[in-house]
């Protein structure tokens, strides 16, 4: 049969028994609807989970001042003992260079901290970590702000003396009084409380992350600690997958800036959240597998229904098949005809299924609040799979049809 006639013949064949066609379409529609909803809702849920996990600082790496074999390191989340020699080679200019030259870095948060400092207000005092930071600190750490404002670029430019304090500090210094606008002393230097941080909780190591005082980086370095070097830089990467590459780029950049010869031990360290990353990757893997399993179930369902109805259709169209053979159709013509019918049906049913799946998405969202994400990949999957099911499900019935002897088929 010439190709241009094949589609017409298939469509006419489907039209001849509309009820049967409808039910085959319904079969695949079921499968594709479930597939669409599964993929959309699944991807939506995965996105939401990723958002949540991002809080773990998944996309961040740390650059620490000081190599592994130096006497004392600062800013590792632990305090150093004041007065001991520290590494002085990590500068604000290094942070700027990273911001300018490393494309994989989305945000840079340089910071300085020299052990713990004494914060006092009136007659109360409390020893706590004090960090000199930039506005990016809140982004890269996902640190919540409860009231007032955090450190701004302007604060750093003008070296202003403002502070944002954590809930534990509020409790220890102010009790139930309102800290906003009050003047506190940090190691003797006066600061105005401009913001109150939200609750961040306990760190994995048992540290109290609500015991914090944040002041502008430049102010801290020049007025409080009297240093010209950083303790570290936290870098947020654009894409989780590039973590190692970005770390390598920063490593190369800093080695060059610090004039380190090859083989010379570095005066800085870079650490990445390997354990957390591994966990998240495994989590995503499990998620994806689940989606595939469910989608597979849906497709098998659709395919089985279509195959069954096709078989019934073939046995009930014996006379037609016999007739076609009698007028000269080759077995492959018959096979092709039925295959094309089944593929056409599943394709139409698949498109209807996608439409119904979109409705299903809205229903799911309304019923359960799960976010749904409809992408072109989901649509393509629907179309692709419905075609595939049509071919596979139609294959056996098509072969059976082709194998019938004309004489037997015509006998009724």
């Amino acid at each position: 049969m010439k190709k241009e006639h094949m589609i017409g013949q298939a469509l006419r064949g489907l039209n001849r028994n509309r009820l049967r066609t409808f039910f085959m379409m319904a079969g695949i529609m079921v499968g594709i609807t479930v597939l669409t909803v599964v993929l959309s809702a699944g991807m939506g849920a995965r996105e939401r989970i990723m958002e949540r996990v991002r809080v773990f600082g998944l996309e961040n790496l740390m650059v620490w001042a000081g190599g592994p074999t130096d006497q004392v390191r600062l800013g590792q989340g632990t305090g150093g003992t004041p007065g001991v020699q520290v590494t002085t080679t990590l500068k604000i200019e290094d942070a700027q260079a990273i911001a300018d030259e490393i494309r994989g870095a989305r945000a840079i948060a340089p910071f300085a901290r020299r052990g713990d400092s004494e914060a006092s207000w009136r007659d109360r005092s409390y020893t706590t970590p004090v960090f000199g930071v930039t506005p990016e600190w809140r982004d890269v750490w996902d640190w919540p702000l409860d009231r007032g404002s955090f450190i701004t670029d302007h604060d750093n430019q003008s070296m202003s003396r403002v502070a944002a304090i954590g809930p534990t500090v509020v409790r220890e210094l102010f009790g139930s009084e309102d800290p906003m606008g009050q003047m506190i002393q940090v190691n003797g230097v006066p600061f105005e409380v401009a913001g109150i941080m939200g609750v961040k909780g306990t760190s994995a190591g048992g540290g109290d992350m609500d015991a914090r005082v944040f002041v502008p980086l430049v102010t801290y370095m020049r007025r409080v600690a009297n240093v010209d070097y950083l303790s570290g830089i936290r870098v947020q990467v654009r894409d989780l997958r590039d973590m190692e590459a970005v770390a390598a780029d920063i490593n190369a950049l800093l080695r060059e800036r610090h004039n380190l010869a090859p083989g010379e031990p570095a005066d800085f360290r870079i650490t990445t959240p390997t354990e957390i990353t591994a966990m998240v990757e495994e989590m995503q893997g499990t998620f994806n597998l689940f989606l595939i399993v469910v989608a597979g179930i849906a497709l098998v369902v659709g395919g089985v229904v279509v195959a069954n109805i096709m078989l019934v259709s073939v046995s009930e169209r014996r006379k037609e098949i016999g007739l076609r053979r009698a007028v000269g159709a080759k077995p492959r013509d018959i096979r092709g005809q039925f295959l094309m019918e089944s593929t056409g049906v599943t394709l139409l049913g698949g498109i209807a299924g996608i439409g119904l799946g979109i409705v299903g998405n809205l229903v799911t969202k309304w019923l359960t609040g799960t976010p749904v994400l409809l992408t072109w990949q989901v649509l393509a999957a629907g179309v692709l799979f419905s075609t595939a099911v049509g071919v596979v499900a139609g294959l056996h019935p098509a072969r059976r049809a082709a194998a019938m002897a004309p004489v037997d088929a015509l006998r009724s």
Partner: protein
Amino acid sequence: MKVVRSLRISARQLGVHRTRTTLSLLGIVIGVSSVIAIVAVGYGARQEVIGRIQAMGTDLIMVTPAQIRPTGGRMQVRGTVTTLTLQDATVLSEELAQIASAVPWASRRMPVKFQGVSSTTTVLGVTPDALDVLNLDTAVGAFHDQREEVTASRTVVLGPTVARALFGEESAVSRRVLIGTVPFEVIGVLRPRGTDLSGTDQDDMVLIPLRTALRRVFNQDWLNGIYLQARSEGEMDAAAGQIRWLLRERHRLDRIGADDDFEIQTQAELMATHREIGDTFTTLVGGIAAVSLLVGGVGILAIMLMTVRERTREIGVRLSVGARRRDVRTQFLAEAVMLGTGGGMAGIALGLGGAAALAVATDWAVQVEPFSVVLSFGFSLLVGIFFGVYPAHRASLLDPVEALRSE
């Protein structure tokens, strides 16, 4: 027409029209089995996903001496509260049912030296249970065992950062290092873990047996903290309460009316994430199952409608040879019930089988939720019966002539 005869006729009808019966059954079987399998697999996947977060310590309770504010980091010792002891840890783990195990620890920042190279790092003294409770793993060599703990041996497990600083690419195992001024033998190196949630480098530490730390290195008889693993996440609050009560008693705080000389904390943020992810997953699976159920119901409806249309003529014949309308309805009801029940049970069997097969294939903790079985079976049965009987009821109201004439 007697009920039994009616049933027999219905059964035979189902057997005669095998194709039609099979198709109708198929709709129900598929609807029921797919929902059961999906929910079961969803359970397993959810356990997998949240299990990973759990491994990061959602069931950990951290007890530290008070006023020693581990400020932003792990092992900062400030002030001199020295009341937390090894006996406290033992008592807590033995007497509190909600506690599965306890890991007492002590730590200081000290230099670790090897052949002239020195690296100042966190020296952590822990008991062997730390391996499980803190989710540690050795990349090479071994961790401390009970014997080394009891004999206060001078063995150390290095974190990868320290190992690399001191030994470069060479093997560190069996080498000797100095912790402070005390010689130690390296028995293992930890698997890299990278930065933790608060930015601390977890690879920058060395671990020695707790007793060794207390007696030979730090020369102290008090702890910097105790990690306690709760038996289950749900019991954390109860456990925390019990811990506080027990420690206050042991430290005789009530007698002198003092505040707690310790602090109890949990990984609140981690737990919140744990819970949220679990919930997200549950609603996702629920949503998928609901959609499958609905779609399956539509499928059953379609098939039922098709078969009844085909049989309008049959209804006409029966009416014309003297069957009462009631007889026709009974026949169809019986058929629908048999079909629905048979299909439903076959669906349950298939769903269970499918769940079992998936459990083997994916290695997940696949578990069938009884609710899904009941719901899908009930729903499919209802739909099948209603749409099997209602159209037949409509057809039975026709004149026999009209019914016979329909195509």
